């Protein structure tokens, strides 16, 4: 079903492109660009807080764009990313007779994401698609899955056998080991596309995912203490937080072929 949706989406994009008037100048008559993009999200906050060991989160994108009017290009892309979430948030095990000295679970879990984007680039006056300075906006479907190993990711707890006898153990259940999430978002940004040798497009700029960034700011302001996560919703909440942060703001550099 998911595959069908992707195919329909691509078809819709292609129809839009080819419905464009033939008399769009493009750049020296060339209107289409396809290529690879590299995205980076500065993750200093995550690193400082212990979520990540890397100062950057990176994403890899494959895109295709087509000039449909003098100052407008339509584009479609798929962005892939993967990172490891280090568990620094606290989980609250609410079971009778259970005591937690350290609420932070051990270990990590992975997040693998795929963002599917449909967007339009609006080129500034004096520039013309696909060349020059532009404003970009569009919709994105952010899909990701989480995976954890119960032997590795567990919360250390103590159980009272008697009022004076405590036995250490682990809570290993954080819901299904593989979990899927999907969410739409709206994004915007700006960039500049330059063309070299009438063939190679170098495109750089930034994008902001509106919901992700807003959610990320709220999370930052409210702080971790507001979450009170149980082991069942620990991964859902923490992964949501991390993915919002990763997608909220990105710088990008794209290289494409003009044809």
């Amino acid at each position: 079903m998911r595959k069908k949706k992707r195919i329909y989406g691509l078809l819709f994009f292609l129809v839009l492109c080819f419905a464009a008037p033939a008399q769009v100048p493009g750049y020296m008559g060339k209107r289409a660009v396809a290529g690879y993009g590299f995205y980076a999200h500065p993750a200093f906050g995550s690193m400082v807080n212990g979520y990540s060991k890397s100062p950057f989160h990176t994403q890899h994108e494959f895109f295709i764009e087509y000039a449909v009017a003098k100052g407008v290009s339509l584009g479609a892309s798929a962005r892939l990313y993967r990172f490891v979430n280090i568990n620094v948030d606290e989980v609250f095990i609410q079971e009778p007779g259970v005591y937690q000295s350290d609420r932070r679970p051990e270990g990590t879990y992975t997040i693998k994401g795929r963002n599917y984007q449909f967007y339009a680039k609006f080129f500034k006056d004096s520039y013309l698609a696909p060349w020059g300075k532009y404003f970009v906006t569009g919709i994105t479907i952010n899909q990701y899955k989480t995976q954890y190993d119960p032997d590795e990711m567990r919360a250390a707890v103590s159980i009272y056998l008697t009022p004076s006898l405590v036995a250490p153990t682990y809570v290993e259940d954080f819901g299904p080991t593989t979990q899927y999430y999907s969410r739409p978002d709206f994004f915007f940004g700006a960039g500049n596309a330059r063309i070299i040798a009438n063939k190679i497009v170098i495109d750089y700029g930034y994008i902001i995912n509106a919901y992700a960034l807003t959610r990320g700011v709220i999370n930052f302001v409210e702080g971790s203490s507001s979450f009170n996560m149980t082991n069942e919703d620990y991964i859902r909440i923490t992964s949501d937080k991390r993915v919002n942060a990763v997608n909220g703001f990105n710088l990008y550099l794209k290289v494409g072929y003009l044809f």
Partner: protein
Amino acid sequence: MFLLLALSGFSQQDLKKEYEPLKSKGELPAVFTQNIRNVIREDISEINKKRESDRNLRSTFVTASNYQIERIIRSGNTLINDEVTQYLNKIADVILKDNPGLRKQLNIFTLKSQVVNAYSFDKGYIFIDIGLIAQAETEAQLAYIMCHEISHYTKQHHINSYVKNAEIDRRRYDGYSTEDRLIEKCQYSKENESEADLEGFKMYERSTYNLKQAEKAFDMLQYAHLPFELIEFKKNFFEGPNYVLPQGYFLKEVSSIKDNSNEDDTKLTHPNTKKRKQAISEMVGNRDNSGRVNSVLGQEKFEYIRDLSRLELCRLYLKNRDYPNALYAAYILHQKFPDNEYIAEVISKCLYAITLYNRNELTYSSDSYLENGFQQYGDVESYPQQLYHLISKMPEFEWTILSLNYVYREHKKFPSNKTLNALSDSLFSLMKRTKWDIEDFARVPKKPQEPVVKDSAAVADSLVKVVKEPSSKTDLIASMQKERVVRNDDTAYYKEVFVDLFMNDAEFKDKFPSSGLSEKDQHYKIYDYKSRRRRLDAQAKVQKAVLLEPFYIKVDETKREEIQYVTSDERQEDLNKTISTCAQKLEFELITIDPGLLTAGEVDKINDYSVINDWFEEKFDTDKEKVKILNTDDIGEVVKKYGTPYVIRTGVATVITRTGAKRTYFYALLFDLAKNELVYKRYEYFKTKDRQDLVNAKVYEMLHDLKFSRKR
């Protein structure tokens, strides 16, 4: 005589009947086909061999100088192998017959400019303006001026001045003010000019030319701001049997000519005329002047060449929309050639233009030297003041009548002349747009009246004294006396101006409007235009156009020589290639007229380039879009030749400012020469340097717009 002329390659025009504007002929010289960067490299290599301390400065100068020479020669304003240029070269042959080595180094051209000047460059290029030739009184004066310019070349004044000026500029760090440095530069320049005067005289002396003419040359230059001849502008020039202009429109006496030969020259680059003349007089001294002549090539030949220059000067005045000067110059020539059709055209065009000017339908741009309008008659010296006074005093309606009367009659004299026909039709249209009553013009003659016997003293008083037999303009000024004119107040004097035409001329009766102030508006038909803008998108797209030399300049304000000539030249070549590539991709037919791309045999293209450029000069002389193009009659021929009325002007300018900021400007304009319309324009500005992708994108977009949408 005819055989001699034919053998000499000099086929003369019959100036009594007609005048064909000067055009380049024969083969284009090497400067058109050379690779200028190679030339510059060789010149710099020569400088480096000498191992002087200021090599870098000299190299910079040589680069700029070469490009300047190229720009002047390829401008379309330089005449090549025409009669006047051939004549000037013959004078140079006479001067340097004993120095063939130096003669070979010189390239002498005529410059189509009304300015009274001559220029030389360090590479032996000498340009002499049409304005100067028109003013010259003798061939010997031209010869002396040429000697002066040659001396600048032999003494390398230009490059030395450049080096010296750089040295003077460095003194600003020693506390020299801008004014101090200007005065010092002017002083150095004056020393060079004096040296050129004296060295030029030594060269001149070795010829057989009259030595006194070297002194006279300075008199000629001193009064160069006046017309080439001073003759009284007679009241009866525009009058007829039933048309007598009121005396009130004419001055009793015209202003005298100021003597500014001894002006303060502290801040001038040349010594004042008095000093220069004095220096030469001392040189002439008691030298034996016997056997020396004013003309070696023949007085008749000189006068013919001067007449050609004077007629060309009329055309140049028209091009610069200086109608009073053009009218006065044509008036002077009319005395010598009363049946010349070209002169009739010039006068008619001027009258028509002045009519529009008086109706505030003709303006000048802020860049024009006439931005404040015609000169005030109070500022004009001598006889031309009469004409300026007439223009300023005569109301617009009366001027329309005067113009129509003159132009229509000339049209009848030259019935096959389309320009005169179109002008008279336009004046009829103006009559229609002016308020007047049917009683304003008599259509039958009045009954004859008793003749009025005038007092003989008044008659004597009313006659203008003419100074007889002046041998030259400067002699006339030296011996001139003031005339007295008696005022005669009169009104409705124009009532019977058209009586004879109403009686005898069916065409006139048919065309003359039955009343004034009509809504319909027809103007100068040859260059028709619509008064309202059309929706451009609805028209046929542009498939073919002429591209004039694309413009490219790179300026770096952080460097001493701000204009980056070599880089600009390279980028211009790239721009040419880009335009050509884009045109091919779009299947857009483009005919490039670029003097830098011509072969030796393509002299016709340089003439076409000149015609189109003249058209643009006239068009851009006003801020109004729908300016009447009166000068360039050949534009129709150009349109027919290339099969398209469209001309593209495009270019790029890029600047690095003193603060390091980068700016790039792109422009593209498409004109319809036949309809006198700007049909497409694009001016864009980018805060970046002139990257190749920027230029490519803009050029392609421009041609794409022209072919498919052509939005303004």
